[in-house]
């Protein structure tokens, strides 16, 4: 995993900061960008522009006095056809939040498809969390908590029902991911792996998983 450990400046010598690439996936309009805005800026807009391509934000959380985790968050476009760009998002991702909307049963199916793809194509050690968003709309619930929990257990995912609007479980979601990251192992790995690893933990020199990037065809012709 291309995570990076660094000594945090201005803190005691044992204080460590780990950087992880986190990617948000899920159907359109389930609230991916809203979850990120709540987590990063503690802000919620009733109406947000649809995300085209991807947006990038960073947020740091302290696990304890000595351990800080910095998430580099890739927020992605939800529409199916943007999927050809997806390998660019999750390549080298250390963790993923797959989001569905508790009022839209189909969005859970879509989330399952993303989980399958991640488990097949992404880094084998990736930590995946399932987030059932919009849980403030309980009166219009279409996915029972137990149903999603059962699936998450089977698939080995962290699971939270969240509301970007009310902030319910948003911090908990990201903190749990941070806690589940194998920090010690990563620290060992990152020490041995400085060449080609850029300082923010995204390894641009590493050959990627096979993917269906549309530019590949053109490049091969070239």
């Amino acid at each position, binding site marked *: 995993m291309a995570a990076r450990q660094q000594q945090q400046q201005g803190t005691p010598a044992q204080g460590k900061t780990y950087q992880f690439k986190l990617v948000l996936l899920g159907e359109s309009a389930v609230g991916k960008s809203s979850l990120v805005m709540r987590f990063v800026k503690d802000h919620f807009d009733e109406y947000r522009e649809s995300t*085209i*391509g991807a947006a990038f934000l960073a947020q740091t959380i302290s696990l304890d006095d000595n351990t800080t985790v910095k998430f580099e968050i890739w927020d992605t476009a939800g529409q199916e*056809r943007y999927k050809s760009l997806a390998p*660019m998002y999750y390549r080298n991702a250390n963790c993923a939040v797959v989001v569905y909307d508790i009022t839209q049963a189909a969005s859970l199916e879509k989330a399952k498809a993303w989980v399958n793809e991640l488990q097949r194509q992404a880094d084998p050690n990736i930590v995946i969390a399932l987030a059932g968003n919009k849980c403030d*709309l309980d009166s219009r619930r279409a996915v029972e908590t137990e149903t999603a929990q059962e699936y998450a257990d089977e698939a080995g995912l962290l699971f939270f029902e969240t509301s970007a609007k009310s902030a319910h479980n948003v911090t908990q979601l990201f903190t749990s991911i941070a806690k589940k990251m194998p920090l010690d192992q990563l620290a060992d790995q990152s020490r041995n792996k400085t060449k080609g690893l850029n300082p923010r933990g995204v390894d641009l*020199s590493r050959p990627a998983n*096979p993917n269906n990037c*549309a530019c590949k065809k053109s*490049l091969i012709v070239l």
Partner: protein
Amino acid sequence: MYVRTTSSPRQSIISHSRKSSRHRQLSNCSPCSSEGLEQYDIYGFNKSSQHVPLHRINEFEARYQSIMGHKRYQWDQMLAENGGDWPEKSPKLRRYIRKGIPRCYRAQAWFHYSGALGLLQKNPHVYKSLVQSAEMMGSHNEHRNLIEQDLHRTFPDNQHLRCQRPEIHSYEPYSPACVPKIQSLRNVLMALSIYSPAIGYCQSLNFIAGMLLLSIEDEEQVFWVMVITTSHILPSNTYDITMEGASIDQLTLLWLIFDKFPEIWSRISNDVPFWELEQYERPPPSTLVTTHWFLTLFANVLPPEASPLITVFRVWDIFFFEGHVVLFRVALAILDLNSEALLNAEDAMEIFQIMQILPKQAIDCNQLLDVCISLSYLGYDLLRLILEL
């Protein structure tokens, strides 16, 4: 001064229902406006933004209005010399358009020079029946849900596109009387999804259609501008399920960055030469940002704030007249104008962050467009063709 419509096809347009809208467009032409330095611009965008302080926008606006006053005079002259009709395409007209179409002529100039007018003339009743079909299809249109979801996610801060519905999660249609622009946006996108089944609906079209509706007003005209944009001006397959046209554009842009701005290239690519990208099976992450730029034609990328300077409309002036090559030029101009920040960035991620924000600060459209036009690079089209093979 008015744009006379002597040819019979154009008369046929006027004789239809657009007569009133046309008169409204032209009546905007005099007197040359000075709409005051208010919070909202004439298109309904909030001028103050987190990216540019309002006083800077107002300063630029005051300067820009006097420049545009002169341009307006030149356009009046040019149109008068041509008997009040739109002149044929010529180097002089191209020069005028590159300097910015006066606002009062802009919407109709786009409609005319893009070729949308011609399409409407050939298909006089098509739009109306498409809107009716879309209504009848209801939820049988597989794109309906996504379109409905995006209606309130298209410039949600704009006065005219602001959703007034308290309940956002229901997919019941808005009341058209309540938010007329949103109803128009729905009609245009639904009609397009039926007219171009290969495209259906692609997120980003909502921003183009929304922006067009704020300028052209007549939704039927907007529809045909959308058709000509997606099927003629932009490469085919840009918005369809493969989005292959968009990928090839990005590859072309990468090559241009590699070729023209080697230092910036080395930062965004982490020193991977363009020709070795294949080995890594991926373009650099900055492509995700520039994909957004191209797919929305910069609609929600360049600043919409500040009334007369609407940077994005200056880009569209050229886009509808000269074609999609201007997108490459603008992208390169943005990188060029911000090369210092990009070269000082720590890594590819910081570059990504800078690229997300910097176009929003490009309020000086004259500066951007001057750089953009000076980037004479022969052969975008040729290069694109080679990459497409």
